[in-house]
């Protein structure tokens, strides 16, 4: 029975300690998730979506400079690691006199990241709407903007819900990288608790469990949104 010398089950004292730590750390972790992980991901996603729509429109505008700028942006963001981007914003920019707090730094990094990836989703969704929809909108006298807002984007939204949900769920998990630039979100909380309890397996598993719970809820919300947007499709 000495295969796992420090096995939990041989050691009732350690088991009790685990339960104690699990109980005392759960609320702080959950609080980190609710106050930082969620707000960080929601704010970044909202800003990122606006960037994505603008970038997608630039890509399909046919104007050479706009297309070039949009392509360069997407290429740079997609071609470099998110963690490196966050480090440049938080640790790098102060050396040119631009010091940004951890949370806004994270928002900038994540928004730019979402913007680049989601722009491809939005672009594909807009291009998937038949040309006749633009023509019908124009024939009613709509401007480009009205056609986009009233006719094209609502239909593109339906097409892009599944891939955008994917992006959002990825983002929720990616917010753990903000721990590295000192944002006190859930993963950083977990690191702090680990530092005092010396139980990384337990605490990080707990954090993982909470991420998974959040993503379960998000998948549920995604289904609801899809059902709602599908109501006009026979």
């Amino acid at each position: 029975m000495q295969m796992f010398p420090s096995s939990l089950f041989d050691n009732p004292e350690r088991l009790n300690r685990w339960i104690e730590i699990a109980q005392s750390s759960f609320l702080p972790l959950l609080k980190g998730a609710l106050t930082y992980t969620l707000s960080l991901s929601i704010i970044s996603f909202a800003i990122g979506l606006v960037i994505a729509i603008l970038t997608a429109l630039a890509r399909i505008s046919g104007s050479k400079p706009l297309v070039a700028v949009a392509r360069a942006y997407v290429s740079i963001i997609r071609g470099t690691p998110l963690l490196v981007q966050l480090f440049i914003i938080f640790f790098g920019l102060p050396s040119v006199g631009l010091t940004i707090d951890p949370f806004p730094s994270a928002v900038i990094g994540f928004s730019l990241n979402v913007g680049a990836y989601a722009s491809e989703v939005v672009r594909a969704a807009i291009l998937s709407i038949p040309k006749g929809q633009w023509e019908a909108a124009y024939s009613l006298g709509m401007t480009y903007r009205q056609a986009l807002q009233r006719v094209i984007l609502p239909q593109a939204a339906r097409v892009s819900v599944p891939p955008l949900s994917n992006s959002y769920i990825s983002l929720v998990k990616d917010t753990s990288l903000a721990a590295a630039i000192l944002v006190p979100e859930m993963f950083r909380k977990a690191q702090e608790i680990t530092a005092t309890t010396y139980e990384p397996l337990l605490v990080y598993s707990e954090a993982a469990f909470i991420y998974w719970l959040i993503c379960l809820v998000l998948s549920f919300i995604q289904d609801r949104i899809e059902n709602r947007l599908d109501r006009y499709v026979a």
Partner: protein
Amino acid sequence: MIVISNLHKRFGDLHVLKGVSLTVEKGKVVVIIGPSGSGKTTLLRCLNALELPTEGSVQIGEVKLDFSARGRVDKAEIARLRRQTGMVFQSYNLFPHMTALQNVMEGPVTVKKENPDSARAKAVSLLTKVGLADKLDHYPAQLSGGQQQRVGIARALAMDPQVMLFDEPTSALDPELVGEVLKVMKELALEGMTMVVVTHEMAFARDVADEVIFMDQGVIVEHGTPEQLFTRPREERTRQFLQLLQ
């Protein structure tokens, strides 16, 4: 009401319209016929600037647009021209995320900034007029092709256009649904609407048109009353085309 002069349209090397001139008086119904690739749909689409002509001019009511290869046409002028016209498409192009009622209200509310309540009342009366009073809250996907096309007509009429343009409005329909759409169009003609119709429905042309225009290879080959054109065509090409239809 409509004055088209010397209209040219090139798509790259393809010369689709080769100097088309045409005048349509208020309240008249003009039917354009011709083989596919003759430029009839392009001509119609030039009338509301869905295609920008390469050369020539289009005047509808008070609004006149001059086109040339280089000069860009003012967007506001294009919008004004479009507000004079209502367009009905071969594939309906209804907005699938809106109900029949919302489709018809959309133009007045978004473009003309009409009060939603009065726009709704008008939309209901237009949909009633095209026989769809019981389908107000149906989405396009829940309607037959003929019903969708009638919503399309109501949607165009909601903007109070001076001119209605029909681009092969029955070509995508099952044969048994063609009649209900043509009936609505005929009623519209009887009310004095100025209409330009591209169609293959010769019976409709014979019955409703004031003038029939035969186009081929980017030019108007012949035009006249339906009586003249169908029974005594002057041009050989017209005769050949009409024979093919029989």
